[in-house]
């Protein structure tokens, strides 16, 4: 067992970045599933704001995934293909009851991603290990993604508040 939050090797770092990629793939896939899960008449009723939010969330996750994949490639590791994660989401997916449920799930996605990057940054900063990739570039990329997740949380919260 390893007590204390710290990333002490390339292998552990690569594994955590792989988990980040999977989390992004889950967000991307669930956003797509939410839109598809609604029957056509309800799909019409989902207002433009929520539809845009889901489309943007999927695009942003794809972008985050690519940035993480570039880091992982420098560590000589591989990632799980989106199609595989999409199939796993599909197998376990239960659609939310209504638009509020969709928004709540989206909020969980953004909050979880924020927490993940926040913990990962702390754990990297707590370690003095030297990685095969540039530490500054690593922390800069992760901090940018964390910031975008924070904005995502604020955006969903704002929509939820003015719908209440």
């Amino acid at each position, binding site marked *: 067992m*390893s007590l204390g939050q710290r990333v002490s090797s390339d292998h552990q770092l690569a*594994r955590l970045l792989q988990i980040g990629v999977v989390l992004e793939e*889950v967000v991307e896939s669930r956003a797509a599933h939410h839109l598809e899960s609604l029957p056509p008449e309800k799909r019409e009723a989902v207002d433009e704001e929520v539809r845009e939010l889901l489309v943007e969330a999927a695009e942003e996750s794809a972008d985050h995934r690519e940035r993480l994949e570039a880091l992982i490639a420098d560590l000589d590791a591989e990632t799980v293909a989106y199609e*595989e*994660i999409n199939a*796993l989401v599909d197998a376990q997916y239960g659609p939310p009851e209504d638009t509020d449920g969709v928004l709540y799930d989206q909020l969980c996605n953004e909050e979880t991603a924020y927490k993940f990057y926040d913990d990962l940054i702390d754990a990297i900063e707590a370690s003095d290990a030297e990685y095969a990739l540039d530490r500054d570039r690593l922390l800069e990329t992760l901090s940018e993604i964390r910031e975008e997740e924070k904005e995502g949380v604020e955006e969903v919260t704002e929509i939820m508040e003015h719908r209440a």
Partner: protein
Amino acid sequence: MNTADQYLKAIYLAQRMEDGPASTGTLADILEVSPASVNEMIGKLEERGLVDHEKYKGASLTDEGLERAHDALQTYCIIERFLTNVLEVEEFRAEARTLESVIDDTVADRLDTIIDRPEECPDCFDPERDCCERLEVCGPAN
């Protein structure tokens, strides 16, 4: 998972293995720390009402401690199952141990949306084999 939760999980597993209070030595072995560190943490967990400690016998979880240990073990099970089923990691036990301190339970909950976990989790966790007995890769019981 924070350090306190890792201790609570270790006490839970040690209690199951020893069928009684968890001894300091067993906890030090599981957690790979010194007996002095174990005793210090047990004292803190006792102050927080999560553990009862009896001299020369060992530590036992209170109801509140048991609930938290259950949640922590569930998070650990999610990490192990995710590593083996999604990332196909052979050394999933060793890797789960290095990752558990960095993976928060909210993150584990999201990973849980893509894995197929038994309803009785974490009761099907085998402390001796350090994995869920329902996982194929866990191997046969001794």
